[in-house]
């Protein structure tokens, strides 16, 4: 396990390094006009533009800029935002948004995992009967309807019928978070239900379950101790990544309900050429994704001790 961890960490470091370098180089390949706002382009003379680029170090040779960037990273200096919040350290810009997205994402994920798994169990238990059909109909509905349409339905129902706030408010975070959380959870519930049902039905059809039934074990015990536990193994792999990526927020939901979270930040910062914010976010998302996969592997071992990550053979 230790050997595996060290190997994975080394691989992860190289991956992050490559991603960061690529993003840095790609951003520098854009025409320098992208450094300026539309208004600056309108009002600056060519000389002024050149002077500003020079002062920002953007006219230095790219290798020199890259080395400077690595140096800053080693000092954990992620720089300041130029456009999203002018002059404010990137860490601070991200910090406030991170907290909101994480709270909302974890809440919705908690709801989705619990409801989705329960739904999947019920569907598997009542396969091809009314509860299963209802669950399948829900899954198809949330996947088929475009998100903005379903969000609008939630918004209209939630605000007009239930009287809930239509958009997020930092002064009233509890009630105003309900509609975005519902929207975030909707699709996720369907995902967990779909895959729980599928893996459980797979297990139910296996010989060892048939044997257990013949031996007279109660259905409930079979479902809980054998079917659910084994069905959960492949699902467990995705759980850490799902938890970690909640900090990324949801672009659509956060925009729709004006949640000041992480969701739109990466696209906004690319759109506005806020280099430091883009670079920091890419590093953060790379690290989180790699960590998510690693923890997923570890969790699989915990859930199913038969699985090993280093020895060949003997896996499921």
């Amino acid at each position, binding site marked *: 396990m230790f050997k595996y961890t060290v190997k994975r960490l080394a691989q992860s470091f190289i991956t992050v390094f490559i991603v960061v370098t690529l993003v840095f180089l790609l951003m520098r390949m854009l*025409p320098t006009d992208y450094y300026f706002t539309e208004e600056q382009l309108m009002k600056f003379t060519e000389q002024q533009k050149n002077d500003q680029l020079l002062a920002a170090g953007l006219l230095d040779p790219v290798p020199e800029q890259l080395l400077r960037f690595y140096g800053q990273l080693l000092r954990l200096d992620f720089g300041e935002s130029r456009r999203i919040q002018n002059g404010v350290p990137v860490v601070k*810009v991200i910090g406030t948004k991170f907290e909101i997205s994480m709270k909302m994402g974890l809440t919705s994920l908690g709801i989705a995992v*619990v409801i989705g798994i329960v739904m999947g169990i019920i569907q598997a238990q009542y396969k091809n009967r009314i509860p299963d059909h209802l669950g399948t109909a829900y899954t198809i509905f949330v996947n088929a309807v475009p998100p903005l349409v379903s969000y609008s339905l939630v918004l209209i129902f939630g605000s007009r019928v239930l009287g809930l706030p239509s*958009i997020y408010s930092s002064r009233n*975070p509890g009630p105003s978070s*309900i509609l975005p959380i519902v929207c975030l959870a909707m699709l996720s519930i369907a995902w967990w239900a779909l895959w729980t049902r599928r893996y459980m039905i797979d297990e139910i059809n296996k010989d060892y379950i048939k044997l257990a039934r013949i031996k007279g074990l109660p259905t409930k015990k079979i479902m809980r101790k054998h079917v659910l536990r084994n069905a959960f193994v492949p699902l467990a792999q995705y759980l850490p990544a799902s938890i970690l990526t909640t900090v990324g927020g949801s672009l659509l939901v956060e925009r729709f309900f*004006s949640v000041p979270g992480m969701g*739109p930040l990466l696209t906004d910062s690319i759109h506005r050429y806020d280099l430091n914010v883009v670079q920091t976010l890419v590093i953060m998302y790379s690290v989180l994704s790699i960590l998510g996969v690693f923890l997923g592997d570890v969790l699989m071992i915990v859930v199913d001790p038969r699985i090993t990550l280093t020895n060949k053979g003997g896996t499921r």
Partner: protein
Amino acid sequence: MRKSTLSRVLALTLSVMLVLTACGGNTANNEPSGTNETPGTTETPATETGSEPIKDLVISKVLTRELETFNTLYSQRAEDSENLTNLVDPLLEVDTYGKLVPAIAKEWGTEDGGLNWTFKLRDDVKWVDINGNEKANTTAWDFATGLEWIMNFHKNDSNNTSMPIEMIKGAEEYYEYTKALSPEEGKALTAGEGSKFLEMVGIEIPDDYTVIYHCITEKPYFDTVATYNCLYPMAQAMVDELGGVDGVTAMNNENMWYNGAYTMTSYIQGNEKIFTKNPLYWDKECDLFDTVTIKMVDSNDVAFQLYQSGELDYVILTESNVKTINENPNHEFHDYLVPDVPSKYSYQFHFNFQKNKEDGTPDTNWNTAIANTAFRKAWYYGLDLKEYYKRTNPITPMVCENNFYTMKGLVYNSKGTEYTELVRQQLGLPEQNGENMVRLDKAKFEEYKKQAMDELTALGVTFPVEVDHYISASSQTALDSANVLKQAMSNTLGDDFVKLNIKTYVSSLNKEVITPKLQSIALNGWGADYGDPQNYLGQETYGNDNAYYSGHYSNINFMTEDTEATKDLLAAYREYTRLVEEADAITTDLDARYDAYAKAEAYMLDNVLILPLNYSIGWSLSKVDVTSRMDAMFGIQNEKIKNWRTNKDGYTTEQAEKLEAEYEAGK
């Protein structure tokens, strides 16, 4: 048993949800607690409609209009200024008719036709912190500090330097001087007594409450510049308190100093801002709200939802919302549609005379066609935009009709005649009739179309001429509008004459389209920075590096050779430029100056160097009397939330029309 398990699961889920969401209450920003107890609260007067006025206003803005900086001197975006204008006051402001009125300067004037301008300041304007606690007096030195900040290369990223460089003595030299210094040396400079800044730049502080600006040449409109960012104040004591230049660059609502009508007591980026009445605000007579909340929303459709659920007091309606409400007499808002006030922008078709194809080679077909006077005149007399106007205003589309380059209401002559009326007279255009575009003339259109096709065919141009029009790839609204325009061109100019190609850019029109010169036409609005036609007409002059449109959109500045195809166009531009320069030179007689500009503008329109497009006047649902808002066609004051009349029940169409009639009568 199964039921109880499910109950436990649900209970657990709800608990998790409540625990996590309840934690969300703490924010980094100050909550507006106690704002209703702010001393100095003035009662907002009852409205003429008899309904109760609003004390805590809630409005919205779309998310793309989010604030990027708290420094008015740094800001060049309307999205920033429309917030900051409520937080910091300049020398002058405007009234509901766009006329200059005193603000921090109680009196001002020039005795030499605009060469030197003296502003006498009030002595009771306080800088306060976020909680309204006094920090210092606003003095003339703050205006010197503000200008030094802008002209210092190392402090303001060269933002807002163009007007001072163009107008104020020594400003350019000081900018160049600071550029030559190291960042540390530059940042250490101030505007104090004996400073290099005062030595070099044409600004004088004879006492704490007098500031004198010395212009390069006579600038009879210089006082209107006092409503623009470049002449805003900044307190040196605030700079010191924040730890110098870097502290000011990163300042936020919690540590900045305010002398405006409100302080921003809460700021959640991408979500909400709360302005709270400044208890020490200098204008004790004005009506302010106790708080103003600005909610950031994804779109105006979401804003409409919020208005319906009573969470907003004002919403601009989209075309579909206006139609839905207007066409259904039983709609709850059918009688509440309020015509909105025009924005300060005058929209035009800007032709590109040096167009490139996407492979970077010149688009000779288009370039030859658009250089032809008859070709452009055919557009002028033939293109009917009524259907296009319905995109902005489906009920009364013709209020959007624009036949001028300069925005209506920018300036008036001494007889009270509005400037574009002078242009109309020069052009010999009839008055607008609210039914059809008055510049259209079918006979002239046919004549010019035939002439253009004959002349251009001889020059090798093939018809229909392809017209590349670029819109944002992510905007359905822009696509719908472009399709309406395409149909309008097809219906009125003819498919045998021109063909509109709708193309898209990803994120930046300027960077992806304008810089590589890919567009045939660009539909763009100009809003004046200061109150003089020169700010409009100067953007189109030929051979002038500071002429924005000539150097960026029309690219006429890059056309230097007189050829068979271009000689008429260049001659028209030269004559137009001569007329503008002639008007620029008139500085003592404003009436004569405006007449001269009107002549130049009429010449430009007659030669169709640009083609007027529209004004943006839509419909809204409003609990605010839109005629009570500041309404200048220049500067950054129009969003200042001061002396706004409100009505808790919302204004009906009838009430709004009555108020508008009163407003017009008061002009």
